[in-house]
């Protein structure tokens, strides 16, 4: 070594704290990441189970389940329009003019009928405004109500049954055969595909689904997951 020995590099004094700081960060991260992930996927975030209080305690379990009224009696535009219309007061009054017309629970309905002011229902299934879901496109393609809305015919209070997230939509857009049913069974809440001998329910659904996919000329996967299919 020469006389002009270079000065040796020394870590500054604060570097002594680097290791403890790193440990804190790693441990903190180990807590932080699972917290965020858990929270992100929790029902609180995805709104599964969201069941707001409605102005009238309308029971789908009674009307659709017990009484067996078809979905389309009230949600009449579901086959021809993007929105499955919330029924007008007049539709309710078709029956309730005579049935339980003095009930305390139906007071808001009677008020609406007399004043002409609409009943303000709280939206349960609320997609972001940039997702353009169209009911008629799905219903006509053999996607049952139950696939997205769950067993509404058993719900006293309507709640959100599915996640309604983009990945949830895409799952079905990739493999529609898992959910397709004949068009005339769309509103049937209890529909099951015909099970052949030795077939599981899943296999039966896949068989029927594939047939229907062909029959209804459901688009291929590339088309179904193209951005413009849902976003505008």
């Amino acid at each position, binding site marked *: 070594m020469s006389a002009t020995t270079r000065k040796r590099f020394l870590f500054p004094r604060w570097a002594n704290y680097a290791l403890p700081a790193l440990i804190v960060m790693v441990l903190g991260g180990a807590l932080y990441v699972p917290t965020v992930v858990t929270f992100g996927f929790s029902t609180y975030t995805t709104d599964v189970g969201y069941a707001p209080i409605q102005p009238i305690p309308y029971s789908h379990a009674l009307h659709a389940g017990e009484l067996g009224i078809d979905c389309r009696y009230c949600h009449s535009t579901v086959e021809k329009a993007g929105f499955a219309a919330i*029924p007008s007061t007049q539709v309710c009054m078709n029956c309730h003019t005579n049935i339980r017309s003095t009930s305390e629970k139906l007071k808001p309905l009677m008020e609406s009928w007399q004043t002409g002011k609409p009943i303000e229902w709280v939206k349960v299934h609320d997609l972001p405004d940039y997702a353009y879901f169209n009911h008629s496109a799905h219903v006509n393609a053999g996607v049952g109500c139950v696939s997205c809305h769950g067993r509404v015919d058993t719900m006293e209070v309507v709640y959100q049954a599915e996640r309604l997230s983009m990945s949830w939509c895409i799952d079905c857009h990739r493999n529609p055969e898992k959910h397709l049913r004949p068009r005339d069974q769309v509103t049937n809440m209890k529909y099951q595909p015909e099970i052949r001998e030795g077939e599981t329910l899943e296999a039966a659904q896949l068989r029927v689904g594939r047939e229907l996919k062909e029959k209804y000329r459901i688009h291929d996967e590339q*088309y179904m997951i193209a951005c*413009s299919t849902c976003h505008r």
Partner: protein
Amino acid sequence: MSHRPSNHGGRTYWQSFDHLEDAPSVQELLSREFPGYSPSDIASMPRRRFLKLMGASLALSGLTLSGCRRWPREQLAPYTYTSAERIPGEPEFYATCMELGGVAKPLLAKAFDGRPIKIEGNPSHPASATWGGKLGSADHYAQASVLELYDPDRSRFVIDRSGPSPRQATFEEFSASFAGFLKANCPAGSGFAILSEASESPSVLDMKNRLLAAMPQTRWVEYEPLSNDNELLGVKQATGKAGRAVLKLDQADVVVSFEGDFLGIHPAQVQYANEFSRARRAADTQGRMNRLFVIESTFSLTGSNADERLPVRPSRVELLAAALASELGIPGVSGSGLEPSEKEFIAAAAHDLRAAGSRGLVVAGAGASPTVHVLAYLINSALKSIGSAVTYVQVPDRPASHPAAIAALAQEMRAGGVKALLILGGNPAFDAPADVDFSRALGGVGLSAHLSLYMNETSLACKWHVPRAHYLEAWGDGRSWDGTIATAQPLIEPLFGGKSVIEVLAMLCGEQIDGQAIVRRALQLQDDAAWRKAIHDGVIPGTSYPPISGGTGSMPQVAPASTGKFELRFVGSYSVYDGRFANLGWLQELPDPLTRLTWDNAALLSKKDADALGVKNGDMIAITANGRTLEIPAFILPGTPAGVITLPVGFGRRNAGSVGGAEGAGIAPAGFDVYRLRGTDAWYFAQDAKVTRAAGTYKLISTQDHHLIDDVGFKGREVRVGEKFRSGRIVREATFRAYYESGRQSNVFHPPDYHGPASRLQLFTPPTDYPQADPGAPDLFNHPHAWGMAIDMTACIGCGACAVACQAENNIAVVGKEMVELNREMNWLRIDRYFKTAGGSVEEKRNDPNPQVVFQPMMCVQCENAPCEQVCPVAATVHDTEGLNTMVYNRCIGTRYCSNNCPYKVRRFNYYDYHATGPRSGRYRMPFLNWPDRQQKDQIDPLLWMQFNPEVTVRMRGVMEKCTYCTQRIAAAKIHARNEWKQGKRPSPLVRDGEIVTACQQACPTEAIVFGNLNDSGSVVRKWQENPRAYAVLDDLNTRPRTRYLAKLRNPVREPQPPAEEKHH
């Protein structure tokens, strides 16, 4: 250098002088995607510090989980009573009409859940039908009228100013007070005057007659700052009957226009543009093409579409019309006093007219003197084209001159003869002739009231103001230019309790105020079925005005040409019309078709005069005429005749609103008030004006240099692929003769050194290699449809209706002048205007007194091989399987790489929440309007919300956007087609040709845009793309655009000179 303006056939295409000269400012615009933007300008901190802070905020945003919570609770309010045909969320169309300048525009209004959101033309009415009655077209004024309906600046209350301070009142109070005053002070209407906008509406005329029957002494005055007085006078002089010319431009092979702007500002513009373009497109199928000669003193839209154009001073137009008449053998006129070039032009026009015979047509415009109208009538009569190419129809007689009428009224007001004045619409305090001084006269009237949409200049000078019902809120009717009745029905309850003209007149007559009953009575439709049909169709066929037959008027005296140094020419504005649309941001920001100026008007002058005065664009000049002076910035418009200054009226409104100018709120007027120079003595033009350079300059913002397409993509490209890939890739054109004689070959449009498109190189693997549907269809992205578009530049006249329609359909924001200056206008569809001049040197090219013009509508061309997609780091812009280059707003993070890489310059970035800030608020500097996830919705005026198209996402700050061929209309049609197929109502799930109409296509009066499925060999778009005129812009970049342009054809008298030896740069 390669990014020079492109050369073609010895002429050069350019967009501005700076572009022509290759000035440094244009270099900057070309070479930088975001000119005027430097990170150091906006950053108040060093880059590293910025990154540190951003990193920290990213971590924190994760902590607060701002994305993971339920968005605000939403309510659903169904109808109370079921309406049989209404389906929530499905659009409905209602026929209606809008009166502008007394003439109705028949329309279809599209409503979503009771909110009118978009205006289309009424295909059932001849004045707006296109595509053989399949579609209707509406001009840009009508398109923008829906914004007027929801303008937050509309007046909301009846205001009483008769007391010491203004107070809010009710319509009942007004009616009691006004009617009471009339009863007490104006027996039988004496001393009562009504000043009305022009109207030919049967119901208004009916109510007028009833009022005059009840109060016979009432004075009814009509005033309109832009009117067709001279035409009425001229036709009266020629035939003895008040009338006007109804053109049949598709029946004319040769059209000679004197000061006519029938393709620009004309009440029948939609119909005329349609007929004109049909006659031009005959070039494809028949061995002929029409030829348009234009003699004009300003550069109008019509002039820019002329095959032969002669720019002259206004005072020479009569001489030229007389010379043409004399050349065609009309007795009693002299053809002397012409310059040699004028003589040559007239001789050529006369030759063609003679050859065309009854298919020849002479048109005189609103700005031409009555004498010219008489001469036009005489020539048409001699050509025997009356009855075929033109019909003169008789209109209800009226006082001949609008300026004279209002001058006489003001005279009487000053003399105290008017005790009560009711002003129905209009804005005379702003737009009355300057020498009338209407505002002062108004101050002396005992009781004055103004019915108006806005609290405007006139309202503020009146004792009472009554909010007017918008045409979309009221029952009404009107007559189109040829007289065919159009009906109007309300689509929405008056938002602010406004009243229509007929309702106010009914109030004065003491009748019940019921618009529907009044219209029904006036139209004499007592039969329910007939009434319902009229309202449903929006038209009562067979009600056009009767034609005038015969008539031999006296030969007019031709006035000698002025020798003064400058003549002024007053024209209506393409954006704000006469000033009434000054508060509509869509129109203020719509670039003028020729100057491309936004948010302003200017004194338009020739290069020669500008040089003589020593002024550049934006320099203030002082104009003095008839003792009145105005200071206004100058703007050089090539093609303006020397010695003429064109002044577009309607700007400079002091009390238009928060967009056009609001004195009270400290918002300066947009533009300059030209009415201060316009008097009864100088109505359409003024002679002997003095023009001097004034102190100062003014910032004029013209978009002519914005989004310039760089025709080969820089020097680097030249180095890479060699010089043969040169220019001529943007605009292609040829003369009709060359095209016809070549046997309609596509090579006549090719630039001299054209070597065909580059190899079919594919830069990336497409998602699926779909089998080719049929030969000729695209071999990529064609499943199950293959969307494509074609735009015919021979048909396009550059009117801009498409641009406004696009803005209305796609919720496109208005950004304001400050932002336009930074190249940040949001219009997805722009119309590129190229001047084309001859000459060797730049100097010669610049001084060409008569440039040709090319209009090229430019929006995203949906490249199959899209450069934007390659560079997006988050795949926010990707292809779907049908060829749409989709733009996923919710995925975009705003890097702007895509825009930087787009050779067509069609991507637009939201620098701010423009919908929320508004164009003139100056709130741009706020980084956040509110909490990040709620900003726009909370800030946008709820009234403006109502105009939004619910089918299209409203984009927020930091998001890129662009045209996607109206993907919402495509989706709606596809879903509809498949539903019908599945329900067994149609044989195929595919969309039929013509089922999808894009917003621009629907608005286009000339049918220049067509959209459809390229897989369908029978589709119109496929046929157009197979036309020999079809080409892809910048095809050498191998972007493989789905939009093709059809090359422009001109039909000049003489073939242009063979291209001079071109210097390759």
